[in-house]
């Protein structure tokens, strides 16, 4: 009789702890998918931001601006006459690259966006905030505007 009672007790306890473990893992797994998506997004954003630190984009006239990109360099690379973009397209391994001004204190407003690598297909792009640095003749100094860099990283086939 006692062995039966003990067996019943053990089975009940096992079922109880099993249910607790199931609830715990269900809650944890539901968060896992959103965490993975968030981390993938963050990684892509960091990759896009890293592009702004490459020698082809980085603004070097000021030493204390790590988030600045040189708009004169961007415009020169994007200019089809120079033919530079054909060389860089494969080096960066990206399908689309665009630099856009978001906010400027200039009275005339933001300069138009610069499409460095043109979009050929419907691609999912990642975006990162950057500072756009460009010489401004009106103030005879460099002007720093808030901008965004949009890129689509080429996927491995």
């Amino acid at each position, binding site marked *: 009789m006692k062995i039966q009672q003990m067996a019943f007790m053990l089975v009940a306890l096992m079922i109880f702890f099993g249910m607790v473990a199931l609830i715990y893992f269900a809650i944890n797994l539901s968060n896992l998918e959103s965490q993975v998506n968030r981390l993938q997004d963050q990684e892509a*954003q960091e990759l896009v931001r890293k592009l702004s630190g490459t020698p082809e984009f980085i603004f070097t006239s000021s030493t204390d601006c790590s*988030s600045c990109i040189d708009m004169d360099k961007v415009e020169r690379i994007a200019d089809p006459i120079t033919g530079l973009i054909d060389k860089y397209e494969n080096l960066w391994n990206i399908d689309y690259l665009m630099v856009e001004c978001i906010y400027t*204190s200039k009275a005339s407003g933001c300069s138009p966006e610069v499409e460095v690598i043109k979009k050929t297909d419907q691609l999912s792009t990642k*975006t*990162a905030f950057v500072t756009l640095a460009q010489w401004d003749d009106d*103030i005879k100094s460099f002007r720093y*505007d*808030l*901008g965004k860099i949009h890129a689509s990283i080429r996927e491995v086939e």
Partner: protein
Amino acid sequence: MKKRAQEEMVGFVIVMLVVAVIFLVFLSVYIRSNKGSQPTESIEISQFLDSIVETTSICSFDDEFTFLSIGDLIRECQKEPIRKCTNIPSTPTPDESEVCMVLASELEKSIEDSWNFGVDSPETGYRFLASFDSGIGASTNILNSPVSKPCGANVQIGADKPVFTPNGKIIISLTIC
């Protein structure tokens, strides 16, 4: 024999109740830690703050010979809040040419140009805070007028960044919800 069995049943029920209470306490602690008041750290907002402090503002102290960056404007707002930008005409109270007013206006415009806030948008509101920490005593808010838009019950994401001054640091933080 029957009484003893009943006692054992009562004992078992008590043990189950104790375990259930412990489980509930753990569960509530876990849920509270996930839904705390602290917003989730966002790389996007962190990048925004890095970029906005470098951005050129409309404020000049030398009749448009040089313009201050937003980062400089934050430092000036902490150091001398009533100092006026010489290139902006003064207005009756609140004076739109004061550095803190210019700062609040520039921040508001740049944040609203960077995200689409609205009822149909994933982002409904924001809150920008700048507090000075001298290292002694409590930190103080440097912006007199709030730079914010009411939030709904959305998930909050945010980031902060230190702006260093000779006598301490100013922590700027932006929360989007």
